[in-house]
């Protein structure tokens, strides 16, 4: 009863605060777009956008690419959810991408986008994103916009705090959202305080290939680790992670984990951790997690189970981890472009705490501590503080920077973006976002070199921004022009899933490296048919392998007979095209899994089980040419005991399919004869 009263009082105060703080512009949900503001978002036909914005899909498990400032949706990149549209996760080559220690997990909840960095700037090579539910980190190759790697993170739960990158992409830092027993065991939930532990994880990234590896984990008290950022410039080598539930509650968290006036910011010296690792201070522990990596030449995903992890314990590693108090239930944690200021947002606090890296270091130097937790020193709150931003709004969540000394913070409860001066801690401007914003993004806004031209606020609850579509509405993003003194709302645009976080990057850093097609000579797929001359059908016991080629506007072979019930048919489709944007699709009647989209020069395999005797059609699903409708064929299925011989062909050229070159030679010979 008592806790309920406290909660109700708190809620009442928040509502009161919201009413008190709102200004009159928030009374209307209509956008007041002044003058030619909308013109700024207009990108005429035939012109490119200036930036790519990569948005995580939240519960969709995917990533979407938008153009800025137009807000045009460019592509949905499947990452953690199977995607029947192109066969991702269904094709034999990509199935292994979903392997985890829990078995095949064909969905997830994707939250934080991190673009690879060199010297604290985006380099446009890779994009990393976390799977929150089944803890995983994925890598998308930005030359192809395809997911090429997924690494599972063991012994954590709810990998929300991930995958935050260091300024030379040395590490992707993550922390467990839910502390759990490590290793997992059957214990009473009310033994939380003694049995539950948290882990902070460091995944290293290969500087050439981008391959990920779990370098080490740090064992932490059983709190909830929420968000993180890494230092930059002078604070490079340090990670900062917000924690909540320092109360270590395990039930009715909304009340029981909101009791303390202050929670904690964890500060990790990862360079020191590397030293301890080298000294052998880490303990190896048996565990199980999966590493799924696409081979570049075959484009086949190989899955490996890893059975060991190295854990560093702060008690054995002095100077590696510190805590500092941070106001009530912090969420965001952001480091400014200079690397000096660290913003800790207490989402239930009316004020925001801004820390100074220099002061933190001085406090550590002089051991200005207020005790410790499990051997982790707690720095005195005031000693590390740069200052407090007084009453900027209600429910501060996330902060990004424009590179001109200004910070922009979203306020979930008071529904606005607030611009403030990092050095002087003065509020400079506020703009309503009309319903609750979560993350926001400025191109390069978390790097050393932000391009402070636009800001996109991603709304969590949209209400009435668009035409209604039943009980569920399109999620919304709002684009602001932040090039002037005041922020200017320029555009609303709908998004897929709940766009949790986004990063935006200059188009010029990606466009020159985009692949137009895969070179057929480089196709190392063991079942590729690299020309129609190699198209064929082979029986391997009960398995029938169809080595099929696709080119405008036919599939070869297009007549297949001799398939029997009980056979398993593998259609290996190689797209022979060597031109931009000429994928071919493949669909066969009664396929219970998916269709395929095969990119030029690539091979993809669809498994098909015949379901009854008869003749069934297959065809190209991606409109590829004027004769696309004609791009089809038949597969004949006979009873299991029948003696129909295996036969295949194109244009009655059974079993001796001719390739284009042979055809050309025949035509030439004919012409010489004429």
């Amino acid at each position, binding site marked *: 009863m008592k806790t309920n009263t406290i909660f109700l009082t708190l809620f009442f105060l928040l509502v009161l605060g919201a009413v008190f703080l709102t200004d009159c512009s928030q009374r209307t949900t209509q956008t007041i777009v002044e003058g030619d503001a909308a013109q700024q978002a207009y990108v005429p036909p035939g012109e490119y956008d200036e930036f790519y914005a990569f948005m995580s899909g939240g519960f969709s498990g995917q990533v979407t690419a938008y153009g800025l400032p137009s807000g045009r949706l460019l592509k949905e990149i499947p990452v953690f959810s199977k995607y029947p549209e192109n066969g991702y996760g269904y094709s034999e080559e990509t199935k292994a991408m979903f392997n985890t220690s829990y078995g095949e997990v064909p969905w997830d909840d994707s939250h934080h986008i991190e673009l690879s960095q060199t010297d604290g700037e985006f380099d446009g090579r890779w994009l990393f994103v976390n799977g929150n539910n089944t803890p995983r980190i994925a890598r998308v190759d930005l030359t192809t916009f395809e997911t090429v790697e997924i690494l599972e993170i063991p012994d954590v739960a709810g990998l929300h705090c991930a995958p935050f990158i260091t300024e030379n992409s040395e590490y992707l830092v993550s922390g467990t959202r839910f502390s759990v027993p490590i290793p997992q065991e059957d214990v009473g939930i009310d033994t939380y305080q003694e049995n539950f532990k948290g882990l902070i994880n460091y995944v290293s990234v290969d500087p050439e290939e981008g391959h990920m590896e779990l370098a080490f984990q740090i064992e932490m008290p059983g709190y909830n680790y929420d968000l993180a950022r890494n230092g930059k410039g002078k604070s490079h080598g340090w990670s900062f992670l917000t924690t909540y539930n320092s109360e270590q509650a395990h039930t009715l968290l909304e009340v029981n984990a909101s009791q303390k006036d202050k929670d904690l910011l964890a500060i990790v010296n990862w360079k020191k951790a590397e030293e301890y690792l080298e000294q052998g201070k880490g303990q190896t522990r048996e565990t199980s997690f999966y590493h799924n990596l696409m081979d570049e030449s075959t484009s086949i995903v190989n899955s490996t189970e890893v059975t060991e992890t190295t854990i560093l314990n702060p008690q054995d590693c002095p100077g590696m981890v510190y805590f500092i108090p941070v106001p009530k239930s912090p969420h965001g944690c952001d480091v400014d472009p200079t690397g000096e200021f660290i913003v800790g947002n207490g989402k239930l606090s009316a004020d925001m705490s801004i820390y100074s890296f220099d002061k933190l270091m001085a406090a550590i130097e002089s051991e200005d501590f207020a005790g410790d937790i499990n051997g982790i020193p707690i720095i005195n709150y005031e000693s590390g503080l740069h200052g407090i931003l007084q009453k900027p709004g209600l429910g501060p969540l996330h902060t990004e920077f424009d590179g001109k000394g200004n910070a922009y913070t979203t306020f979930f409860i008071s529904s606005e973006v607030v611009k403030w001066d990092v050095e002087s801690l003065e509020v400079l401007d506020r703009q309503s976002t009309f319903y609750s914003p979560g993350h926001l993004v400025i191109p390069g806004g978390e790097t050393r070199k932000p391009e402070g031209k636009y800001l996109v606020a991603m709304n969590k609850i949209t209400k009435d921004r668009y035409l209604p579509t039943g009980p569920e509405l399109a999620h919304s993003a709002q684009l602001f022009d932040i090039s002037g003194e005041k922020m200017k709302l320029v555009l609303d645009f709908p998004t897929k899933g709940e766009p949790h976080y986004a990063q935006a990057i200059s188009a010029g850093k990606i466009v020159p490296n985009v692949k137009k097609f895969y070179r057929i000579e480089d196709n190392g797929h063991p079942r590729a048919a690299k020309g129609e001359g190699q198209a064929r059908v082979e029986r391997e016991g009960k398995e029938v392998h169809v080595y099929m080629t696709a080119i405008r506007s036919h599939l070869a072979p297009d007549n297949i007979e001799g398939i029997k019930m009980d056979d398993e048919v593998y259609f290996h489709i190689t797209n022979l095209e060597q031109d931009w944007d000429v994928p071919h699709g493949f669909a066969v009647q009664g396929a219970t899994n998916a269709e395929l989209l095969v990119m030029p020069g690539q091979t993809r395999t669809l498994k098909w089980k015949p379901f009854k005797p008869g003749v069934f059609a297959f065809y190209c699903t991606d409109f590829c*040419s004027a*004769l696309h409708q004609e791009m089809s064929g038949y597969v004949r299925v006979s009873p299991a005991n029948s003696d129909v011989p295996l036969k295949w062909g194109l244009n009655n050229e059974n079993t001796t399919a001719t390739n*284009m070159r042979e055809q*050309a030679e025949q*035509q030439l010979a004919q*012409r010489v004869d004429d």
Partner: protein
Amino acid sequence: MNLLNQSQRITTQRGAARWLMLLGVILLGGLFLFPLWQITLEAAQFPGGLRLNIWIDRFSGDDGTDSIIQNINILNHYIGMQYIEPDSIPELVYFPYVVYGMMALGVGTVLLNKTWGYATWLVIMVVLAILGVYDFYLWMYDYGHNLDPNAPIKVPGMTYMPPLIGEKDLLNFYVKSYPRMGTIFMTLSILLAALATWVSIRKEKVHV
């Protein structure tokens, strides 16, 4: 005094013819460094156009690969044009040898340093160049007219020969065909040979 000047001039002119011819022979080597001709197919759905470069010994796209031929072949198969098959075009094999031969002959004329030598080389080269262009025209005529009767798209009365030089509408494509650096180098080589011949003739006139 006057006579001495004249003989000096003769010596210089003899040298000039040699140097001009030698330069011409070297420039002929440009045929191996640059494409001879370029055919561009422009259409709304191909921003920047599809560009086919024709070299003395091969075809290429602007990216240096031959995937352009496959792409043009795929487009052409709707209207029943034959596949362009570089391997089935014998000229691409022997033309380089003809050029090597002419370069060797050119060096011969430089050593010989006689007007008739330069003139003969010039005449052979001009004839070869004309024959080369005519041969190119024949191939284009053949590709443009010799259509597969079973072609999916048949437009009555339509042929698809690109212009030898110039621009033309062909169905949905606007086709441009122009000589490139290789041809310019060859032309310069011919002009230099002509100049060498002329200089050499003047030298002999003075001598006589």
